[in-house]
């Protein structure tokens, strides 16, 4: 654990990418194989199953620290992190226990098999044998949600440096539903595994938002354009008589979209499609909220299947006839995709997402401006001769989203954030005017700079009218421009509407309170864009 805690500290103590990668690469060279495997797992969002509830952890920590539970509970939101709060309140350790990371995780997993008294004994013994950072790491392993400020991309790069293996190849190996319980380091990194290969997705290629005018991209003829749909990006794998559907977050969604099992009937063996899952009816996408109802479920009742039938809009072909064709130019991959889908009947839930033909950039700008009418978020630009890359990279793909919808709203409630944003008020509720009343209609958490968050935090502290637990009602004074991507009717909200991706676009210090928008303005937007 000492080695892993040291790694954690080194990663935490720098904001520089190269230093992080170097620290991680050194760790991958030196650490025992099981620890390496678990580190890869933790940094790619895999964690041991929780075996002790946080309620018990809080009670035990308060008891060990000799403080009442209420005092612990008051300190927790101020620290902003449970694992850290526990690590900080405990008295210094009386002994020193040195065990490997994998060993500790084994111990934590074994707690599932024992009774509560034994769990408590084991946890208290661990706390009493670890110094503050090790305790924090240990608590994170129990409570989950470990973030170390290292993206999967940086982790993969470090692993490539340490092993001498190709980074893209490693990225592919680390995809899928492997767990450190079922695979060894060498199996994961070195050995071929036909069963895992059958379902393994390719790393998604992600685009940056285009932040210049498109003429900067050169000749329009070098580029293909298509609509950017507002659904769930997914990868459909059709191999070895089975099919799998992966989300961009590498979650297996196969069981949630049973209608796509038609892949077995209509798509040839050895096919991988990158596309967008959409709820679809009468030739156009249904609002995202309809699709959203299906996301939270492991299986789908018949009623939902009928209300929000799903289809896959295919963007790209990554595997054809069992061959990885990501290195081919987009134009070639796209041609093969169209050829393949030409044979699929119209009733099957697979469509090639249409390309937008455009002679010049002005024409594309017009198509983009009209994309909201098609229930799309804008357009995607793909260089015709570009391969399918992995991760978020600049150059060959760009998303060119429509300008967001905006509305000026009044801040009325504030709540503190967590983690990096602990102790700052970052979560706000906004309202619009309805006569002389302010009607709340959305929350927003992002869009301000750290300096602005500090400024509004100081203001909130001096202008709190009432407290409801962690939420504070503040004096209506500040107007913010709220940007959002879509607006829908919602019976669950007091205002009757729900926004898609709301965020704070600008702090309108220039705008008097009375000039914020009204509920009627919102309803007009709903009528136009809902």
């Amino acid at each position, binding site marked *: 654990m000492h080695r892993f805690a040291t790694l954690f500290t080194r990663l935490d103590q720098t904001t520089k990418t190269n230093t992080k990668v170097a620290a991680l690469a050194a760790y991958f060279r030196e650490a025992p194989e099981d620890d390496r495997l678990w580190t890869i797992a933790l940094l790619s969002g895999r964690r041991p199953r929780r075996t002790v509830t946080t309620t018990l952890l809080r009670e035990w920590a308060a008891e060990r620290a000799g403080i009442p539970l209420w005092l612990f509970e*008051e300190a927790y939101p101020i*620290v902003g992190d449970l694992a850290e709060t526990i690590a*900080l309140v405990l008295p210094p350790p009386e002994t020193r226990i040195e065990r490997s990371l994998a060993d500790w995780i084994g111990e934590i997993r074994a707690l599932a098999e024992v009774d509560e008294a034994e769990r408590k004994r084991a946890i208290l013994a661990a706390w009493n044998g670890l110094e503050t950072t090790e305790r924090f790491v240990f608590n994170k392993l129990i409570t989950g949600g470990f973030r170390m400020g290292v993206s999967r991309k940086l982790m993969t790069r470090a692993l490539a440096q340490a092993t001498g293996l190709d980074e893209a190849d490693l990225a592919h190996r680390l995809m899928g539903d492997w767990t450190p319980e079922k695979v060894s380091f060498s199996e994961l990194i070195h050995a071929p595994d036909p069963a895992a290969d059958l379902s393994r997705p390719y790393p998604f290629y992600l685009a940056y938002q285009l932040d210049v005018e498109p003429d900067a991209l050169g000749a329009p003829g070098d580029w293909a354009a298509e609509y950017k749909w507002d659904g769930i990006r997914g990868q459909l794998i059709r191999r070895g008589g089975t099919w799998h559907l992966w989300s961009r977050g590498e979650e297996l969604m196969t069981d949630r979209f049973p209608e796509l099992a038609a892949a077995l009937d209509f798509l040839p063996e050895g096919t991988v499609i990158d596309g967008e899952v959409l709820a679809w009816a009468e030739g156009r996408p249904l609002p995202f909220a309809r699709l959203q109802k299906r996301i939270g479920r492991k299986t789908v009742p018949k009623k939902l299947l009928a209300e929000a039938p799903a289809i896959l809009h295919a963007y790209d072909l990554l595997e054809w006839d069992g061959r990885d064709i990501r290195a081919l130019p987009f134009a070639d991959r796209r041609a093969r995709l169209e050829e393949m889908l030409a044979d699929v009947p119209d009733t099957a839930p697979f469509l090639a997402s249409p390309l937008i033909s455009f002679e010049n950039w002005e024409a594309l700008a017009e198509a983009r401006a009209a994309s909201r009418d098609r229930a799309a978020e804008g357009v995607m630009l793909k260089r015709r001769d570009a391969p399918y890359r992995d991760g978020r990279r600049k150059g060959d793909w760009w998303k060119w989203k429509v300008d967001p919808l905006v509305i000026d709203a009044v801040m009325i409630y504030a709540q503190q954030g967590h983690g*990096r944003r*602990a*102790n700052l008020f970052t979560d706000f509720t906004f309202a619009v005017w309805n006569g002389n009343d302010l009607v709340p209609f959305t929350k927003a958490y992002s869009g301000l700079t750290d300096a602005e968050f500090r400024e509004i*935090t*100081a203001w909130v502290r001096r202008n709190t009218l009432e407290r409801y637990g962690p939420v504070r009602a503040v004096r209506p004074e500040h107007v913010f421009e709220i940007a959002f991507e879509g607006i829908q009717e919602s019976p669950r909200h007091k205002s009757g509407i729900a926004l898609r991706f709301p965020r704070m676009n600008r702090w309108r210090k220039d705008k008097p309170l009375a000039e914020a928008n009204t509920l009627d303005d919102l309803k007009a937007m709903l009528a136009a864009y809902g």
Partner: protein
Amino acid sequence: MTAPVLKSTDRGLYCEAGDFFIDPWRPVDRALITHGHADHARPGHARYLATETALPVIRHRLGDITAEGIAFGEVRRIGDAEVSFHPAGHVPGSAQIRVAVGGEVWVVSGDYKTAPDRLSEPFEPVRCHAFITECTFGLPVFTWAQEADVAGSINAWWAANAADGRISVIGAYSLGKAQRLLALLNDGIGPILTHGAVEGTNAVMRAQGLPLPDTVPVTPETRSKDHPGALVIAPPSALGSSWMRRFGAVATGIASGWMAFRGVRRRRAADRGFVLSDHADWPGLNNAIAATGAERVFVTHGYTAIFRRWLESEGYDAQVLGTEFEGEDLDARDDDNAPAQTGD
């Protein structure tokens, strides 16, 4: 119960028997000042009284004021009140102020730190009936490491940066924290450069005989290549400012009690956060309060509501004393970084 010795007013803490204020935030006729930090020593009062060691810095910051010095422990009569100043261990010259009226003794802690450093007069507990205590770090999550351990980490960080050919820049408040660091640093590692705000305070303290190592003031002509392996001490507000550009690629650190929180460390975007505070930690606050023997405790500056409830559960008659500040704000009212204090 006897009449209160001190009471809270819109101008600050007031003693009726002596007709004076302690650390008032609006102009008054007679102000007793615990120490020179800007939220305690404000401009505009007709008369100031502070310890002889605190006064030079207060004059340096406030300019031409009518002020008188007092020795630690010296008892002075003001009206019907007896006052004396006692070391608070916060920064050099910082005091707790004891006020006795007709046998009733109250003590105002000002800001204080119970662990010794190498410059400030060490904190002395003062017996009293009522204790008005700050509680900036009044939560059980704050326990400071030994000063020598923190010094070891800072020196090791500096030495490693020097070996990498990088200048180290550490953000520390210009009065108190900066000089405390100077006393902790191993100046064998390299030269120590100072921001003008820090150097101004250094000059005042050197003139009054405090032992500070040699420093090189940063000027517009300063080039980092002339000072290889240097460590620069600057107010936290200078970190990331254009002032920093002259040093090229640097390693940055901040020394503050708030660095105990990972969230704050990460948000500040300095490479390193060193947990070094001039305030008492949780054990320090509790020990200090117990040592006064006071039954009544007024809490101010910090997590007042929580700390009051804790003290009550420990058997004290505890109340919150309002101030103009709501001290729980980690960023805006960090003693090391308060906006009003960074300009000097």
